[in-house]
Protein backbone atom coordinates (compact mmCIF):
# COMPACT_ATOMS: atom_id res chain seq x y z
CA UNK A 1 0.00 0.00 0.00
CA UNK A 2 2.69 2.42 1.05
CA UNK A 3 4.96 1.33 -1.77
CA UNK A 4 2.17 1.64 -4.27
CA UNK A 5 1.42 5.14 -3.15
CA UNK A 6 5.08 6.08 -3.28
CA UNK A 7 5.44 4.75 -6.81
CA UNK A 8 2.33 6.59 -7.85
CA UNK A 9 3.70 9.82 -6.40
CA UNK A 10 6.96 9.44 -8.29
CA UNK A 11 5.13 8.66 -11.51
CA UNK A 12 2.88 11.65 -11.01
CA UNK A 13 5.84 13.88 -10.29
CA UNK A 14 7.63 12.72 -13.43
CA UNK A 15 4.51 13.28 -15.47
CA UNK A 16 4.04 16.75 -14.10
CA UNK A 17 7.61 17.87 -14.59
CA UNK A 18 7.38 16.56 -18.12
CA UNK A 19 4.24 18.57 -18.59
CA UNK A 20 5.91 21.71 -17.32
CA UNK A 21 8.90 21.20 -19.57
CA UNK A 22 6.65 20.90 -22.60
CA UNK A 23 4.65 23.96 -21.68
CA UNK A 24 6.31 26.31 -24.14
CA UNK A 25 3.82 29.14 -23.82
CA UNK A 26 3.90 29.51 -20.04
CA UNK A 27 2.65 33.01 -20.32
CA UNK A 28 0.49 33.11 -17.23
CA UNK A 29 1.21 36.65 -16.35
CA UNK A 30 -1.53 39.02 -15.40
CA UNK A 31 -2.26 42.63 -16.03
CA UNK A 32 -2.77 44.38 -12.74
CA UNK A 33 -5.93 46.33 -13.37
CA UNK A 34 -7.48 49.00 -11.22
CA UNK A 35 -9.66 46.43 -9.48
CA UNK A 36 -6.55 44.99 -7.86
CA UNK A 37 -6.81 47.18 -4.83
CA UNK A 38 -4.00 47.83 -2.46
CA UNK A 39 -1.64 49.91 -4.57
CA UNK A 40 -1.31 53.55 -3.63
CA UNK A 41 -1.04 54.37 -7.32
CA UNK A 42 -4.42 53.20 -8.57
CA UNK A 43 -3.61 53.96 -12.15
CA UNK A 44 -0.57 51.77 -12.11
CA UNK A 45 -0.53 48.99 -14.68
CA UNK A 46 1.92 46.32 -13.77
CA UNK A 47 2.64 43.01 -15.37
CA UNK A 48 3.53 40.34 -12.85
CA UNK A 49 4.63 36.82 -13.71
CA UNK A 50 2.67 34.11 -11.85
CA UNK A 51 3.41 31.30 -14.30
CA UNK A 52 4.31 27.75 -13.41
CA UNK A 53 3.05 24.64 -11.69
CA UNK A 54 3.18 24.41 -7.92
CA UNK A 55 3.32 21.09 -6.04
CA UNK A 56 2.11 20.61 -2.47
CA UNK A 57 4.94 20.39 0.09
CA UNK A 58 3.26 21.06 3.46
CA UNK A 59 -0.25 20.55 4.83
CA UNK A 60 -2.16 21.51 7.95
CA UNK A 61 -5.70 21.04 9.17
CA UNK A 62 -6.08 20.54 12.91
CA UNK A 63 -3.12 21.57 15.04
CA UNK A 64 -0.67 18.90 16.10
CA UNK A 65 -2.21 15.93 14.30
CA UNK A 66 0.70 15.12 12.01
CA UNK A 67 3.21 15.92 14.73
CA UNK A 68 1.71 13.72 17.42
CA UNK A 69 0.10 10.82 15.58
CA UNK A 70 2.41 10.20 12.63
CA UNK A 71 4.92 7.75 14.05
CA UNK A 72 7.90 8.39 11.76
CA UNK A 73 9.43 11.11 9.63
CA UNK A 74 8.44 9.13 6.55
CA UNK A 75 4.77 9.14 7.57
CA UNK A 76 4.95 12.85 8.41
CA UNK A 77 6.30 13.58 4.93
CA UNK A 78 3.58 11.45 3.32
CA UNK A 79 0.92 13.29 5.33
CA UNK A 80 2.17 16.66 4.12
CA UNK A 81 1.73 15.70 0.48
CA UNK A 82 -1.61 13.91 0.94
CA UNK A 83 -5.14 15.14 0.25
CA UNK A 84 -7.81 14.99 2.97
CA UNK A 85 -10.30 12.81 1.06
CA UNK A 86 -7.71 10.00 1.12
CA UNK A 87 -6.28 10.62 4.58
CA UNK A 88 -8.60 8.50 6.73
CA UNK A 89 -7.90 5.36 4.69
CA UNK A 90 -4.17 6.05 4.48
CA UNK A 91 -3.34 7.19 7.99
CA UNK A 92 -5.99 5.89 10.44
CA UNK A 93 -4.35 2.49 11.14
CA UNK A 94 -0.97 4.09 11.86
CA UNK A 95 -2.53 6.80 14.02
CA UNK A 96 -4.32 4.16 16.11
CA UNK A 97 -1.08 2.20 16.52
CA UNK A 98 0.76 5.35 17.58
CA UNK A 99 -1.95 6.20 20.11
CA UNK A 100 -1.62 2.74 21.64
CA UNK A 101 2.18 2.96 21.51
CA UNK A 102 2.09 6.07 23.71
CA UNK A 103 0.00 4.17 26.27
CA UNK A 104 2.29 1.14 26.05
CA UNK A 105 5.33 3.37 26.62
CA UNK A 106 3.91 4.61 29.90
CA UNK A 107 2.86 1.13 30.94
CA UNK A 108 6.46 -0.06 30.64
CA UNK A 109 7.90 3.10 32.22
CA UNK A 110 5.58 2.58 35.21
CA UNK A 111 6.70 -1.04 35.60
CA UNK A 112 3.62 -2.63 34.02
CA UNK A 113 3.18 -4.58 30.82
CA UNK A 114 1.90 -2.93 27.61
CA UNK A 115 -1.37 -4.86 27.92
CA UNK A 116 -2.07 -3.15 31.24
CA UNK A 117 -2.56 0.34 29.85
CA UNK A 118 -4.71 1.05 26.80
CA UNK A 119 -6.46 4.10 25.43
CA UNK A 120 -9.83 4.55 27.12
CA UNK A 121 -12.85 6.14 25.39
CA UNK A 122 -12.74 9.86 26.02
CA UNK A 123 -15.18 12.54 27.12
CA UNK A 124 -16.59 13.06 23.63
CA UNK A 125 -18.76 9.98 24.14
CA UNK A 126 -20.58 11.53 27.07
CA UNK A 127 -20.77 14.92 25.41
CA UNK A 128 -22.24 13.54 22.19
CA UNK A 129 -24.50 10.89 23.66
CA UNK A 130 -25.16 12.06 27.18
CA UNK A 131 -23.99 10.21 30.28
CA UNK A 132 -25.90 7.27 31.67
CA UNK A 133 -26.47 7.20 35.40
CA UNK A 134 -23.35 5.14 35.98
CA UNK A 135 -21.21 7.17 33.60
CA UNK A 136 -21.19 4.46 30.94
CA UNK A 137 -22.03 5.44 27.39
CA UNK A 138 -23.51 3.15 24.80
CA UNK A 139 -21.41 4.63 22.03
CA UNK A 140 -17.98 5.38 23.43
CA UNK A 141 -15.39 7.06 21.25
CA UNK A 142 -13.08 4.11 20.69
CA UNK A 143 -9.47 4.45 19.57
CA UNK A 144 -10.62 3.53 16.06
CA UNK A 145 -13.40 6.12 16.04
CA UNK A 146 -11.16 8.85 17.45
CA UNK A 147 -8.27 8.23 15.07
CA UNK A 148 -10.69 7.95 12.12
CA UNK A 149 -11.99 11.43 12.89
CA UNK A 150 -8.52 12.84 13.46
CA UNK A 151 -7.02 11.18 10.37
CA UNK A 152 -9.37 13.16 8.13
CA UNK A 153 -7.31 16.18 9.09
CA UNK A 154 -9.41 19.28 8.44
CA UNK A 155 -10.22 22.27 10.62
CA UNK A 156 -13.98 22.70 10.90
CA UNK A 157 -15.10 26.34 10.93
CA UNK A 158 -18.69 27.40 11.57
CA UNK A 159 -19.68 30.65 9.86
CA UNK A 160 -21.84 32.94 11.98
CA UNK A 161 -21.12 31.09 15.23
CA UNK A 162 -18.68 31.96 18.02
CA UNK A 163 -15.37 30.15 17.55
CA UNK A 164 -14.18 27.60 20.08
CA UNK A 165 -11.77 24.78 19.33
CA UNK A 166 -13.20 22.80 22.21
CA UNK A 167 -14.47 23.59 25.69
CA UNK A 168 -15.78 20.76 27.88
CA UNK A 169 -18.03 23.15 29.78
CA UNK A 170 -18.74 22.19 33.38
CA UNK A 171 -16.89 18.89 32.90
CA UNK A 172 -17.81 15.38 33.95
CA UNK A 173 -20.30 13.91 34.18
CA UNK A 174 -22.80 16.10 32.28
CA UNK A 175 -20.43 18.53 30.49
CA UNK A 176 -23.05 21.22 30.70
CA UNK A 177 -22.30 24.04 28.29
CA UNK A 178 -19.76 22.06 26.27
CA UNK A 179 -19.11 23.75 22.93
CA UNK A 180 -16.57 23.44 20.19
CA UNK A 181 -15.49 22.27 16.79
CA UNK A 182 -16.35 25.66 15.31
CA UNK A 183 -12.82 26.76 14.41
CA UNK A 184 -9.62 27.79 16.17
CA UNK A 185 -8.92 31.16 17.78
CA UNK A 186 -5.43 32.53 18.43
CA UNK A 187 -5.76 31.79 22.14
CA UNK A 188 -7.39 28.33 22.14
CA UNK A 189 -5.38 25.80 24.18
CA UNK A 190 -5.31 23.23 21.39
CA UNK A 191 -2.55 21.18 23.00
CA UNK A 192 -4.45 20.59 26.26
CA UNK A 193 -7.62 19.75 24.28
CA UNK A 194 -5.70 17.21 22.21
CA UNK A 195 -4.06 15.70 25.29
CA UNK A 196 -7.41 15.37 27.08
CA UNK A 197 -8.97 13.61 24.09
CA UNK A 198 -5.98 11.27 23.68
CA UNK A 199 -5.14 10.51 27.32
CA UNK A 200 -7.98 11.87 29.47
CA UNK A 201 -10.25 8.81 29.37
CA UNK A 202 -13.90 8.99 30.34
CA UNK A 203 -13.59 11.88 32.80
CA UNK A 204 -10.88 13.89 31.02
CA UNK A 205 -8.46 13.48 33.93
CA UNK A 206 -7.31 9.87 33.72
CA UNK A 207 -3.61 10.82 33.72
CA UNK A 208 -3.59 14.06 35.67
CA UNK A 209 -0.53 13.47 37.84
CA UNK A 210 -2.53 11.91 40.69
CA UNK A 211 -1.47 8.87 42.76
CA UNK A 212 1.89 8.48 41.06
CA UNK A 213 0.37 8.59 37.59
CA UNK A 214 1.96 10.81 34.92
CA UNK A 215 0.53 14.20 33.96
CA UNK A 216 -0.53 13.70 30.34
CA UNK A 217 -3.71 15.80 30.04
CA UNK A 218 -2.04 19.24 30.17
CA UNK A 219 1.36 20.63 29.26
CA UNK A 220 1.05 23.18 32.05
CA UNK A 221 1.32 26.33 29.92
CA UNK A 222 -1.32 28.87 28.86
CA UNK A 223 -1.77 31.62 26.32
CA UNK A 224 0.52 34.63 26.79
CA UNK A 225 1.17 36.27 23.40
CA UNK A 226 0.12 39.80 22.50
CA UNK A 227 -2.96 39.87 20.30
CA UNK A 228 -5.31 42.64 19.27
CA UNK A 229 -9.03 43.01 18.62
CA UNK A 230 -8.12 44.80 15.37
CA UNK A 231 -7.12 43.15 12.09
CA UNK A 232 -4.61 41.47 11.64
CA UNK A 233 -5.08 40.44 15.32
CA UNK A 234 -1.57 38.96 15.83
CA UNK A 235 0.87 41.08 17.83
CA UNK A 236 3.91 42.86 16.39
CA UNK A 237 7.04 40.70 16.18
CA UNK A 238 9.27 40.59 19.25
Amino acid at each position, binding site marked *: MKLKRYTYTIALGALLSLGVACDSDDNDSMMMEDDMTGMEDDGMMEEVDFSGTF*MQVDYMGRPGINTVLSGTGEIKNMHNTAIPSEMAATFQPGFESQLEAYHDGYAVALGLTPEDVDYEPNILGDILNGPDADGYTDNPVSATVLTSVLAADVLEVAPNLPTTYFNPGAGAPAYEGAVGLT*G*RTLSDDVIDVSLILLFGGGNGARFAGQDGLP*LLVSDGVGFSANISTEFPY*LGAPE
Partner: protein
Amino acid sequence: MKNTAKTAIILSSLVVALGIMVAADHIDAPDSMGTTADIADYYAFEPTEGSDNTTFVVDLQTNVVDGLPYGTFDEDVLTEINIDLDGDLVEDKVIQAIPRDGMMYFFGPFDPSQTGTSSEVAVDSPLGMVEISDATAITETTADGVSLFAGPRQDPFFFDFNRYNQVVMPSAEDNSGFNSPGVDTFDGANTMSIVIELPNAMLGTPTATNVLGLEVYKTWVTTNRKQ
Protein backbone atom coordinates in the same frame (compact mmCIF):
# COMPACT_ATOMS: atom_id res chain seq x y z
CA MET B 1 35.90 33.36 11.17
CA LYS B 2 32.79 35.12 12.25
CA ASN B 3 30.86 33.41 9.49
CA THR B 4 32.22 30.06 10.54
CA ALA B 5 31.05 30.62 14.09
CA LYS B 6 27.64 31.71 12.87
CA THR B 7 27.37 28.68 10.62
CA ALA B 8 28.33 26.44 13.50
CA ILE B 9 25.60 27.95 15.66
CA ILE B 10 22.99 27.53 12.93
CA LEU B 11 24.11 23.98 12.28
CA SER B 12 24.00 23.01 15.93
CA SER B 13 20.54 24.56 16.23
CA LEU B 14 19.44 22.54 13.26
CA VAL B 15 20.74 19.39 14.90
CA VAL B 16 18.67 20.26 17.95
CA ALA B 17 15.66 20.92 15.72
CA LEU B 18 16.12 17.61 13.97
CA GLY B 19 16.15 15.73 17.23
CA ILE B 20 12.79 17.03 18.36
CA MET B 21 9.20 17.17 17.25
CA VAL B 22 7.26 20.36 17.23
CA ALA B 23 3.56 21.23 17.24
CA ALA B 24 1.11 22.59 16.17
CA ASP B 25 2.60 22.06 12.74
CA HIS B 26 5.86 23.87 13.42
CA ILE B 27 8.72 21.95 11.84
CA ASP B 28 6.50 18.90 11.69
CA ALA B 29 8.27 16.76 9.10
CA PRO B 30 11.80 16.23 7.78
CA ASP B 31 11.08 17.40 4.23
CA SER B 32 9.43 20.69 5.11
CA MET B 33 10.93 21.76 8.40
CA GLY B 34 13.13 24.81 8.41
CA THR B 35 12.19 25.60 4.80
CA THR B 36 10.41 28.68 3.51
CA ALA B 37 7.38 26.48 2.81
CA ASP B 38 7.06 25.15 6.37
CA ILE B 39 3.57 25.79 7.74
CA ALA B 40 3.93 26.68 11.42
CA ASP B 41 0.28 27.13 12.27
CA TYR B 42 -3.23 27.65 10.97
CA TYR B 43 -6.17 29.42 12.61
CA ALA B 44 -9.70 30.17 11.37
CA PHE B 45 -12.26 32.07 13.43
CA GLU B 46 -15.18 34.46 13.60
CA PRO B 47 -13.39 37.78 14.23
CA THR B 48 -16.04 39.24 16.55
CA GLU B 49 -19.22 37.68 17.88
CA GLY B 50 -22.01 38.10 15.36
CA SER B 51 -19.67 39.01 12.50
CA ASP B 52 -20.54 37.85 8.99
CA ASN B 53 -16.82 37.49 8.23
CA THR B 54 -14.37 34.64 8.72
CA THR B 55 -10.66 35.24 9.40
CA PHE B 56 -7.97 32.86 8.17
CA VAL B 57 -4.40 33.00 9.55
CA VAL B 58 -1.56 30.99 8.03
CA ASP B 59 1.79 31.22 9.81
CA LEU B 60 4.80 30.17 7.77
CA GLN B 61 8.26 29.45 9.17
CA THR B 62 9.24 30.02 12.77
CA ASN B 63 12.20 30.97 14.89
CA VAL B 64 11.06 28.89 17.82
CA VAL B 65 14.51 27.36 18.07
CA ASP B 66 17.32 29.87 18.61
CA GLY B 67 19.23 30.30 15.39
CA LEU B 68 16.41 28.83 13.27
CA PRO B 69 15.18 32.08 11.77
CA TYR B 70 11.97 32.98 10.13
CA GLY B 71 13.05 34.85 7.09
CA THR B 72 11.13 36.37 4.24
CA PHE B 73 8.30 35.11 2.08
CA ASP B 74 9.56 32.94 -0.78
CA GLU B 75 8.32 33.85 -4.29
CA ASP B 76 8.43 30.16 -5.25
CA VAL B 77 5.94 29.21 -2.50
CA LEU B 78 2.19 29.44 -3.17
CA THR B 79 0.01 29.28 -0.04
CA GLU B 80 -3.53 27.92 -0.43
CA ILE B 81 -6.53 27.96 1.89
CA ASN B 82 -8.92 25.17 0.88
CA ILE B 83 -12.61 25.19 1.81
CA ASP B 84 -14.92 22.20 1.40
CA LEU B 85 -18.60 23.14 1.56
CA ASP B 86 -20.38 19.79 1.12
CA GLY B 87 -18.31 17.52 3.36
CA ASP B 88 -16.63 15.29 0.75
CA LEU B 89 -13.21 16.65 1.83
CA VAL B 90 -12.53 17.93 -1.69
CA GLU B 91 -11.98 21.68 -1.98
CA ASP B 92 -14.92 23.68 -3.39
CA LYS B 93 -13.33 27.12 -2.86
CA VAL B 94 -9.65 28.05 -2.88
CA ILE B 95 -7.91 31.23 -1.78
CA GLN B 96 -4.29 31.71 -2.87
CA ALA B 97 -1.48 34.01 -1.68
CA ILE B 98 1.91 34.47 -3.31
CA PRO B 99 4.55 37.18 -2.89
CA ARG B 100 6.09 39.23 -5.69
CA ASP B 101 8.58 42.07 -5.16
CA GLY B 102 7.48 43.21 -1.70
CA MET B 103 3.76 42.66 -2.26
CA MET B 104 1.52 39.73 -1.29
CA TYR B 105 -1.01 38.95 -4.04
CA PHE B 106 -4.28 37.18 -3.20
CA PHE B 107 -6.55 35.24 -5.60
CA GLY B 108 -10.01 33.72 -5.23
CA PRO B 109 -12.10 32.46 -3.63
CA PHE B 110 -12.48 30.49 -6.87
CA ASP B 111 -13.94 27.10 -7.80
CA PRO B 112 -10.87 25.03 -8.71
CA SER B 113 -10.93 23.39 -12.12
CA GLN B 114 -8.58 20.73 -10.77
CA THR B 115 -8.19 19.51 -7.20
CA GLY B 116 -5.34 17.68 -5.53
CA THR B 117 -1.66 18.40 -4.98
CA SER B 118 -0.85 20.38 -8.15
CA SER B 119 -1.83 24.02 -8.60
CA GLU B 120 -1.43 27.05 -10.78
CA VAL B 121 -2.03 30.64 -9.76
CA ALA B 122 -5.62 31.64 -10.55
CA VAL B 123 -4.65 34.78 -12.44
CA ASP B 124 -8.23 35.20 -13.70
CA SER B 125 -9.54 35.54 -10.13
CA PRO B 126 -7.55 38.38 -8.54
CA LEU B 127 -8.71 39.30 -5.05
CA GLY B 128 -6.31 42.03 -3.96
CA MET B 129 -2.81 42.73 -2.75
CA VAL B 130 -1.04 44.25 0.20
CA GLU B 131 2.46 45.52 0.81
CA ILE B 132 4.42 43.03 2.92
CA SER B 133 4.86 44.62 6.34
CA ASP B 134 7.92 45.09 8.49
CA ALA B 135 7.36 45.29 12.25
CA THR B 136 4.47 47.74 11.80
CA ALA B 137 1.37 46.19 10.27
CA ILE B 138 0.25 47.47 6.87
CA THR B 139 -3.25 46.30 5.96
CA GLU B 140 -5.54 46.74 2.98
CA THR B 141 -9.29 46.44 2.61
CA THR B 142 -10.71 45.78 -0.85
CA ALA B 143 -13.92 47.16 -2.30
CA ASP B 144 -15.53 43.79 -1.49
CA GLY B 145 -14.75 44.23 2.20
CA VAL B 146 -11.82 41.78 2.27
CA SER B 147 -8.97 42.64 4.67
CA LEU B 148 -5.43 41.56 3.80
CA PHE B 149 -2.13 41.33 5.69
CA ALA B 150 1.27 39.68 5.21
CA GLY B 151 4.37 40.07 7.33
CA PRO B 152 6.25 39.08 10.49
CA ARG B 153 4.14 38.69 13.64
CA GLN B 154 4.44 37.27 17.11
CA ASP B 155 3.75 33.53 17.12
CA PRO B 156 0.69 33.12 19.38
CA PHE B 157 1.10 29.37 19.75
CA PHE B 158 2.03 28.06 23.21
CA PHE B 159 3.37 24.66 24.16
CA ASP B 160 6.04 23.13 26.40
CA PHE B 161 7.56 21.29 23.48
CA ASN B 162 10.94 20.65 25.09
CA ARG B 163 9.20 18.68 27.81
CA TYR B 164 6.88 17.09 25.24
CA ASN B 165 9.84 15.50 23.52
CA GLN B 166 10.77 13.84 26.79
CA VAL B 167 7.17 12.95 27.63
CA VAL B 168 6.78 10.88 24.46
CA MET B 169 9.84 8.81 25.41
CA PRO B 170 9.18 7.85 29.03
CA SER B 171 11.56 5.70 31.05
CA ALA B 172 11.57 4.17 34.52
CA GLU B 173 13.57 7.22 35.67
CA ASP B 174 11.38 9.82 33.97
CA ASN B 175 7.73 8.80 33.83
CA SER B 176 5.95 11.76 35.43
CA GLY B 177 4.69 13.32 32.19
CA PHE B 178 4.42 17.08 31.83
CA ASN B 179 5.43 19.61 34.48
CA SER B 180 2.94 21.91 36.17
CA PRO B 181 3.62 24.67 35.50
CA GLY B 182 5.51 23.97 32.29
CA VAL B 183 7.66 26.29 30.18
CA ASP B 184 6.20 27.87 27.03
CA THR B 185 8.84 27.15 24.41
CA PHE B 186 7.14 29.52 21.95
CA ASP B 187 7.27 32.55 24.26
CA GLY B 188 9.08 35.20 22.23
CA ALA B 189 8.94 33.34 18.91
CA ASN B 190 8.03 35.11 15.68
CA THR B 191 6.52 33.83 12.46
CA MET B 192 5.63 35.02 8.94
CA SER B 193 1.86 35.53 8.90
CA ILE B 194 -0.64 35.71 6.06
CA VAL B 195 -4.03 36.94 7.29
CA ILE B 196 -7.20 37.31 5.24
CA GLU B 197 -10.65 38.21 6.49
CA LEU B 198 -13.57 37.99 4.11
CA PRO B 199 -17.39 38.00 4.09
CA ASN B 200 -18.85 34.51 4.45
CA ALA B 201 -21.04 35.25 1.40
CA MET B 202 -17.90 35.03 -0.77
CA LEU B 203 -17.40 31.41 0.33
CA GLY B 204 -21.02 30.22 0.23
CA THR B 205 -23.15 28.39 2.77
CA PRO B 206 -21.80 25.03 3.88
CA THR B 207 -23.95 21.92 3.93
CA ALA B 208 -21.24 19.90 5.74
CA THR B 209 -21.75 19.41 9.47
CA ASN B 210 -19.48 18.61 12.40
CA VAL B 211 -20.23 15.87 14.93
CA LEU B 212 -22.37 18.32 16.90
CA GLY B 213 -24.59 18.84 13.85
CA LEU B 214 -23.42 22.42 13.25
CA GLU B 215 -22.90 23.56 9.65
CA VAL B 216 -19.20 24.06 9.08
CA TYR B 217 -16.63 24.77 6.42
CA LYS B 218 -14.10 21.92 6.34
CA THR B 219 -10.81 23.68 5.77
CA TRP B 220 -7.09 23.06 5.39
CA VAL B 221 -4.04 24.93 4.21
CA THR B 222 -1.15 23.89 2.01
CA THR B 223 2.10 25.32 0.76
CA ASN B 224 3.06 24.51 -2.79
CA ARG B 225 6.52 24.94 -4.31
CA LYS B 226 7.12 26.01 -7.90
CA GLN B 227 8.44 23.13 -10.00
